[in-house]
């Protein structure tokens, strides 16, 4: 509807593509949640890939796996685990919010929902961090 | 008329007058080029409070204008349906003096053909609960609200669809031709800086309070002085009907509802530069004081905006030499006034009478061109304002 074939009218050459998702100026809570959802989605996707790669080390035998487990117990990797947990929580809860709103089931309390989900994610992630680091 | 041999008229000024004139001339088969230095309706037209006149405001002191207004009111409802808030208006009496004015007001409306009905205080407050307690009553008339941009834009859209060349961001820098005979205008396309010339059989100056400045560029004397007034928009829609004070016109005696806003107007003073009007703070205070007398609830509302708009006040020279085709506006044929062929000026008028003004001006233009072409704008329903931006292929 908005791109004329001959003149290209409507297609704004100044559009910045994906970079437009992350311009901080003038952004409100909803815009940050949007950007965060994309980042966490990419992050979780990256994790999934890594996860499969790591699992595939099983094929190289017990030695390779044991090496990995030793690495995985280091504080740096555990910290990444907490970040992963937070990312999963944020992405999941945000996704729930988007589903409710996106089908017009909930139309009010936009910002309240975002604040609530971030708080829940933070609490659970903190609890999770305690357990993760406690396991070592 | 063959499009190639049809005469070409250049209209300088993209306000309501220019737009309605472009539409009228285009319908008569004349080639129209309209140039406006900034955006359409960026001058006085865009800034008014949106009152869609019934003419009642003029019934007592200017019955000729009143008759014009009610006639144009009816025509606009027909040719621009869906472009108005049509909740009628009230002339509200607040005190005994207002009730005395009523004795002149009601018969004057009837004489002008303006439908008027007297409502008692309780009846009026049932329609408008925001009116003050204990008012003696109000006169109901067919006032309304128009969208100051979008109504004229319908004229521009229809003109465009009928072949007119509408060029905003195009500024006149001078005229072409020899002394005593103007043959066109010199313009600069502001975005690119590109200059060019546009030929014209007649140049019509429809630049409102800037008519004097444009006239100087054309070598003619147009004595128009800006007479601005302050308007104040309050947040929140506090009434549906236009509320006027039932007295001889004064400052701040009208509240016009528009979308989610209530607009209080207006005042009057004389300025020199139409581009530098200012917003006198005491006028803003006066608007608030008077407006809250009609609608006390406005006292608790926030000011959304306070701005000035300039009426074009036609000077004395104009009064004697310009042909007063109506009390509300004047048309100057500079061949007669200044000995310069090919230039005509139209100035004055009300937003409500834009079509009627254009008809009379177009009649003058057409007569000067030696043509027979009747006006058809009173029966032609206008395109929606969104049509102005339709791609040429789809128009």
């Amino acid at each position, binding site marked *: 509807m908005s791109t004329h074939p001959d003149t290209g009218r*409507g297609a704004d050459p100044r559009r910045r593509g994906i970079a*437009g998702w992350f311009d901080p100026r003038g952004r409100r809570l909803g815009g940050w949640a949007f950007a965060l959802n994309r980042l966490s989605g990419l992050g979780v996707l990256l994790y999934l890939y890594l996860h499969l790669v790591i699992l595939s080390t099983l094929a190289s035998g017990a030695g390779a796996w044991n090496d990995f487990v030793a690495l995985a117990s280091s504080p740096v990797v555990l910290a990444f685990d907490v970040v992963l947990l937070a990312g999963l929580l944020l992405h999941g809860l945000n996704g729930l919010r988007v589903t409710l709103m996106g089908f017009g089931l909930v139309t009010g309390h936009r910002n309240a929902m975002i604040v609530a989900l971030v708080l829940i994610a933070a609490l659970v992630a903190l609890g999770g961090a305690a357990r993760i680091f406690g396991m070592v | 008329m063959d499009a190639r041999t049809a005469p070409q008229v250049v209209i300088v000024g993209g306000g309501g007058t220019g737009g309605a004139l472009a539409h009228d001339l285009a319908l008569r088969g004349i080639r129209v080029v309209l140039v406006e230095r*900034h955006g359409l309706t*960026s001058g006085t037209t865009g800034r008014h409070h949106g009152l869609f006149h019934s003419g009642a405001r003029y019934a007592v002191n200017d019955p000729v204008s009143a008759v014009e207004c009610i006639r144009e009111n009816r025509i606009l409802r027909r040719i621009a349906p869906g472009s108005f808030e049509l909740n009628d208006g009230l002339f509200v009496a607040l005190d005994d003096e207002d009730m005395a004015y009523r004795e002149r007001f009601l018969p004057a409306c009837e004489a002008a053909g303006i439908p008027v009905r007297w*409502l008692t205080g309780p009846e009026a407050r049932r329609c408008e609960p925001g009116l003050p307690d204990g008012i003696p009553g109000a006169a109901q008339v067919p006032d309304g609200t128009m969208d100051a941009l979008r109504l004229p834009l319908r004229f521009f859209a229809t003109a465009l669809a009928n072949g007119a060349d509408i060029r905003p961001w195009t500024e006149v820098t001078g005229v072409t031709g020899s002394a005593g005979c103007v043959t066109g205008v010199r313009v600069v396309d502001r975005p*690119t800086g590109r200059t060019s010339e546009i030929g014209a059989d007649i140049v019509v100056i429809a630049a409102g309070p800037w008519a004097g400045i444009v006239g100087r560029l054309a070598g003619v004397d147009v004595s128009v002085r800006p007479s601005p007034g302050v308007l104040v*928009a309050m947040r929140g829609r506090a009434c549906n009907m236009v509320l006027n004070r039932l007295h001889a016109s004064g400052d701040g005696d009208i509240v016009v509802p528009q979308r989610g806003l209530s607009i209080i107007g207006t005042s009057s003073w004389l300025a020199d530069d139409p581009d530098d009007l200012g917003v006198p703070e005491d006028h803003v205070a006066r608007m608030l004081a008077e407006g809250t007398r009609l609608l006390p609830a406005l006292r608790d509302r926030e000011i959304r905006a306070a701005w000035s708009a300039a009426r074009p006040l036609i000077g004395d020279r104009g009064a004697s030499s310009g042909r007063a085709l109506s009390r509300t506006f004047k048309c100057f044929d500079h061949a007669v006034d200044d000995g310069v062929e090919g230039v005509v000026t139209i100035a004055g008028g009300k937003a409500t009478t834009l079509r009627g003004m254009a008809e009379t001006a177009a009649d003058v233009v057409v007569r000067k061109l030696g043509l027979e072409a009747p006006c058809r704008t009173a029966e032609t329903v206008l395109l929606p304002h969104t049509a*102005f931006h339709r791609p040429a292929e789809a128009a």
Partner: protein
Amino acid sequence: MTTTVDPAVRAAGAATRVLRVTRTPRGAGGDGGGGDLARQHGRRGRSDGFEVPAGSARTTVLDALTWARTHLDPTLDVRHACYHASCGTCGVRTDGRAVLACVTRLADLPEGDITVEPLRNQALISDLVVDIEALYEGFDAVGMPLVRESRTVPGSRPAPGVEGLTRFEDCIECGLCVSVCPIEASDAAYEGPAVLAAAWRVVEEPRHADPERAFALVDGDQGAWRCHLATECTEVCPSGALPAEGIMHLRRGLLRHRFRVAFARLRVGANGAGEPGGTP
């Protein structure tokens, strides 16, 4: 980057602010070709500084811009008409935020120089003037009536002889929502929050327009389903037109619409008009 100053203003010692306005290059004299391309492709024009008087608490960004145009640089292009947030023509970005210049007071903006840029996601005509043609094409296609019959003043009644109360729609076609929408930023084909909100208004209150047609227009990959609920549109709307909510209502309406159509088809099939639906 230059800052233009009026010596008389300086001499008067009045309070001033500096506006840093993005400009587009002008083609030289009769050429203009280079200017066109530069404008279209957003090649960074210069940023001009204008020192404007700011003594009054009421002075708005639009007042400042037109003052600069009158007193400092007549070539500055800025669009305006109503001066009271009803026409929607003066949208700009101040310090990165999309606003209507006519109701944004200098006094309410943070200290220091004020950056003024054109709105995003719409082609640029000149300086701060964007091309609203694409936006209007969408509005034209949807055909939302300008006048509505709901949300008039509560408690009021039509005067004798008046059929029903009417008022103008909230949406003033300003394009601020288009400027802030992250999907608009990355995808020119997206119908956008303004047009979608207009379609919702047609469905919610058809008047003489056709709600089915509005549904059909927005039921697509680039329509109501393309929105990802950043809700920046509703946050920025100066008129309370609630575009984000409109899109969500559209989706719910579209779902119901689709269910209805699907069930109607099933019912037709079950009534034996076609093949048997399955073995009993």
